[in-house]
């Protein structure tokens, strides 16, 4: 099928292109211009961008279907313009066996919405003791290996895991948090946690773990993507590590770019996140790190949680926020506040994460997969439980007006969402 998207403002972050024009799609790929289309989409007044790539979105299957289902979250993904997503292995059971990965991919594929890239468990049951069969998991479709939010306190296991992954060129995606220092903490260890009487997690829980990890990368030369930075100190360490030439990249969760511990207000359990929201200075450093490129990309860290998991006292509430449908509006908000142009803004959710994921999508080059998001950057959205497609309604942004509304989402040349 031949598809022509006409008169849109075509933004290709990979090349920096931003101009009104047409995009042509043939056989599921971006094509050279042609004269006779089977279908045309009028994108006048809208932005045509590569579909968004989210490096962390929990789909909750298998095991947590009461929180969300593959179907509900895949609907949320395409409603948010997300055409590729990587899902962490913290399902139940965790993604530590090829059969599970294979089933997840098949189920996801049959829904014909976004592309799903499973991240395999680095250790069996995410328990941090024994390595998984990474080779077989990779054959089953795992793009990387991670512990999700599960701790890996044994540094010898971490060292071996990185050596093993490096041997075969697998990439590991790791959060950095010292399990002992973070023990029983639920909020950034600072003035707000002190006022609210919440057990704290100090910033150095992150920087100490990052220091350990970087030292192991230095020793093993393993390719490591550091997930969800939360502190100013960690941004500085990543800057130095990249300057040194270590094979490391990193991301930040979109909530951490906009919120800080002050937003906990009167115990808002929607602000209970992993890692915790830190101070204003940390948030500013994350914003600047993302602007300057020390932080490679931003992800939603989408975590749908049911009301039973959130209608609890803050410390007992389950961590996480729904995010797939907020990724675009919150990224646009960050870009506008940072005075970035649209191509540079969108790079953080297109070409940036595509490089880490190692996919050919995330750009509008001829021959690239025709994964596209067509959106109205000015249209405002009032975030509410009714408007969110995700089964998780847990977001600190409920009631907020945010700009940026997806009109059409295309995956492999097929329209998978239309508003």
């Amino acid at each position, binding site marked *: 099928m031949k598809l022509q998207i006409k008169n849109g403002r075509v933004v290709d972050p990979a090349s920096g292109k931003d101009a009104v024009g047409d995009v042509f799609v043939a056989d599921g790929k971006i094509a050279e211009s042609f004269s006779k289309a089977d279908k045309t989409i009028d994108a006048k007044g809208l932005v045509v961008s590569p579909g968004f790539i989210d490096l962390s979105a929990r789909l909750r299957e298998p095991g947590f279907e009461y929180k969300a289902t593959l179907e509900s979250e895949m609907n949320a993904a395409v409603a948010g313009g997300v055409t590729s997503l990587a899902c962490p292995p913290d399902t139940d059971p965790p993604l530590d066996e090829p059969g599970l990965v294979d089933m997840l991919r098949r189920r996801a594929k049959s829904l014909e919405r976004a592309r799903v890239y499973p991240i395999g468990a680095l250790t069996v049951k995410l328990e941090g003791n024994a390595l998984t069969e990474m080779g077989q998991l990779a054959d089953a479709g795992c793009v990387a290996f991670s512990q999700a939010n599960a701790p890996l306190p044994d540094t010898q296991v971490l060292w071996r895991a990185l050596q093993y992954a490096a041997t075969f060129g697998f990439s590991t995606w790791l959060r950095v948090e010292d399990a002992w220092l973070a023990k029983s903490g639920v909020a950034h260890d600072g003035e707000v946690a002190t006022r609210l009487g919440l057990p704290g997690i100090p910033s150095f829980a992150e920087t100490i773990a990052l220091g350990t990890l970087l030292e192991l990368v230095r020793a093993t030369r393993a390719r490591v993507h550091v997930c969800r930075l939360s502190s100013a100190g960690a941004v500085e360490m990543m800057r130095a590590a990249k300057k040194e030439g270590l094979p490391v990249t990193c991301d930040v969760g979109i909530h951490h770019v906009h919120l800080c511990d002050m937003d906990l207000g009167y*115990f808002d359990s929607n602000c209970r996140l992993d890692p915790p929201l830190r101070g204003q200075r940390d948030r500013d450093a994350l914003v600047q790190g993302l602007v300057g490129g020390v932080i490679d990309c931003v992800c939603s860290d989408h975590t749908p949680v049911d009301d039973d998991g959130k209608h*609890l006292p803050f*410390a007992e509430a389950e961590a996480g926020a729904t995010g797939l449908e907020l990724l675009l509006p919150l990224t646009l908000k960050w870009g506008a506040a940072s005075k970035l142009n649209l191509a540079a803004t969108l790079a953080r959710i297109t070409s940036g994460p595509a490089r880490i994921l190692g996919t050919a999508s995330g750009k509008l080059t001829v021959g690239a997969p025709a994964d596209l998001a067509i959106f109205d950057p000015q249209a405002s959205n009032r975030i509410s439980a009714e408007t969110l497609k995700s089964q998780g309604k847990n977001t600190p942004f409920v009631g907020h007006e945010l700009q940026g509304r997806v009109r059409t989402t295309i995956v492999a040349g097929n329209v998978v969402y239309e508003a």
Partner: protein
Amino acid sequence: MPRNPQLNENGELQHLLSIEGLPREILTQILDTAESFAGVTEREVKKVPLLRGKSVFNLFFEPSTRTRTTFEIAAKRLSADVINLNIAVSSATKGESLLDTVANLSAMQADIFVVRHASSGAPFLIARHVKPHEHVVNAGDGRHAHPTQGLLDLFTIRHYKKDFSKLTVAIVGDVLHSRVARSLIHGLTTLGAPEVRVIGPQTLMPAGVEALGVKVFHDMKAGLRDADVVVMLRLQNERMRGALLPSAQEFFKHYGLTLDKLAVARRDAIVMHPGPMNRGVEIDSNVADGPHSVILPQVTFGIAVRMAVMSIVAGN
């Protein structure tokens, strides 16, 4: 920041959840009302009809003797019906959620919920979900707040010292885990006490505690020097098991209140303790039973203060 959830649209006290964020006028109103109730407790017929026909549910998710009892006495003196629920050994262990428990009790026509919970913020969660005519009084949540204890401490200080504007108050011990300390600090800073000190080892000080408006001392005598009021905090036994403190003996050596250490405070200093006391851990018996101690009057004042709080919220 959303509107302070304790206040109604007219800025009146709908729930008492925390002293933090309450205006000076409301604190003074509570203390003045408590003053008027102090007389009631000395009369032969110790009752006033202010809450007649109202139901007060004592919802204790964590064990307590003193606080629960004084709330019960206070409610009865206001002529309310009191129902005591020791949730720690009933619904919670059967897996019922906090909000379900509250919804069920609400269906039994509650007017005031007095809530104690081990998790910081639990009374805020309940206050967000109760009906408009229902009131929540926080009887202690996690490390966060114990506002009626803070108020009775303020009442005691005002009783003996009259004026807050020249006072030096020293709070000693486990500030990290203490909801009593947090509530009292907010109360003192709101009422204009010029110098509030906290004394203890670094392991028992929460991060950034200075931001609450206090001066931090690690040396007990330096912190007690010329203090008008000394508030000793309870040190729970379980704190001695981890890496916070080596032993009760060592804690007592550095931070236990003895006559020798108290000698550097002002001659007319008062010594307070929220109870229950650990004699020989945070306080020496010579001090606890001595002329500076106002620990038992605190308990008595607690009844009048809780009467004041319940009558005020029920009237708004």
